[in-house]
């Protein structure tokens, strides 16, 4: 991810009121995760497994924070039960920023299957999502996703495509 995109994402998260971000890094998320670690206005929590991050975000919400989770789609696929039982069932919003590897133009042969399964799993969980990549569309997408997460009291996802990640 380019530093400019990472900066735009963090600026938009802050504008959306997000003050607590759990992350699990990956090569394409490195700039974003390292910038979040330096960001004063955001409580950054690096986690060991994405499922755990969803639990931490839910706990932070119950304590008055406005949480988001940054992860890759491979990690998102680990979170289905956490999202169902900890967020969707009681009605707890978590904004998810998911790096969407394995989409169109993917060169790494091991990412294609994860890319193929990401949207069907989001749909199966009835999680609303939007795919974005260009710098100029990221802010609006994040603001809208957080508004929906808070009003619907549900997790909402942004899929960051190849254009955002490269």
């Amino acid at each position, binding site marked *: 991810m380019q530093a400019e995109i990472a900066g735009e994402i963090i600026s938009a998260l802050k504008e*959306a*009121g997000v003050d*607590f971000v759990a992350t699990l890094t990956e090569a394409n998320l490195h700039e974003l995760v390292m910038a979040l670690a330096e960001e004063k206005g955001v*409580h950054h*929590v*690096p*986690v*060991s*497994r994405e*499922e*755990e*991050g*969803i*639990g*931490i*975000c*839910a*706990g*932070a*919400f*119950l*304590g*008055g*924070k406005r*949480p988001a989770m940054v992860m890759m789609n491979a990690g998102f696929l680990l979170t289905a*039960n*956490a999202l169902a*039982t*900890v967020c969707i*069932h*009681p*009605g*707890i919003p978590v904004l998810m920023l998911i790096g969407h590897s394995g989409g169109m133009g993917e060169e790494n042969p091991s990412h294609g299957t994860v890319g193929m399964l990401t949207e069907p799993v989001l749909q199966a969980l009835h999680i609303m999502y939007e795919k974005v990549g260009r710098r100029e569309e990221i802010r609006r997408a994040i603001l809208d996703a957080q*508004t929906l997460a*808070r*009003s619907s*009291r549900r997790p909402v996802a942004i899929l960051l495509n190849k254009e955002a990640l490269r």
Partner: protein
Amino acid sequence: MKRFDCLKAIAPYFRDELVVTNLGGVRHEWYALRPHPGNYHLQNLGLTSSVGLGLALALPHRRVVIFDGDGSLLLNLGSLATIANFSPKNLVHVVFDNGCYESSRGAPTATAGVTDLAAVAKGAGFAHTATATEIEDFEENFLKAFRSSELHFIVAKVEPGMGDVPPAPLDSQENKYTFVRYIEKTEKVSILGSPQSRGSDLKER
């Protein structure tokens, strides 16, 4: 030693502390002993420790107590590494270890074999770990943790079995609202915002 007797021994010490309980019998036992809006009864196996960590980080001035189980923590051992790296001063992590998946008809967990969860926590970086096999020992260890300003991990080795208590009546949505409204009131913050309008939600930012 029974879990219900452990909970009975420590319940009188609770005032406004926040409690996250694991799925299973502990929820009903704790609700019977301490019905309080600061209880959050998780309907998930595995994430008790993580929800407790999120709460402890969000409210560093409030004491948070986690009532976990061995089967639950074994699903989420990585959370011990995350918790230890933050070492929240306001968090007490209690694991009632009955060595089996009791709510799932009792097949043994790894702690019935060679696994020692206190040793795992110590290796993950917890500075204070203890294992109790007697009530007095558990109460003493718990009180030390409860009154300290450091992260503690306590394994209570208990026999399987549930106290004679009625089912806790709260469902998950109700528990969420009760808990969140309690936090909003005691912390003077807005968490859920206004239910009907984007405009008022925006204003709260």
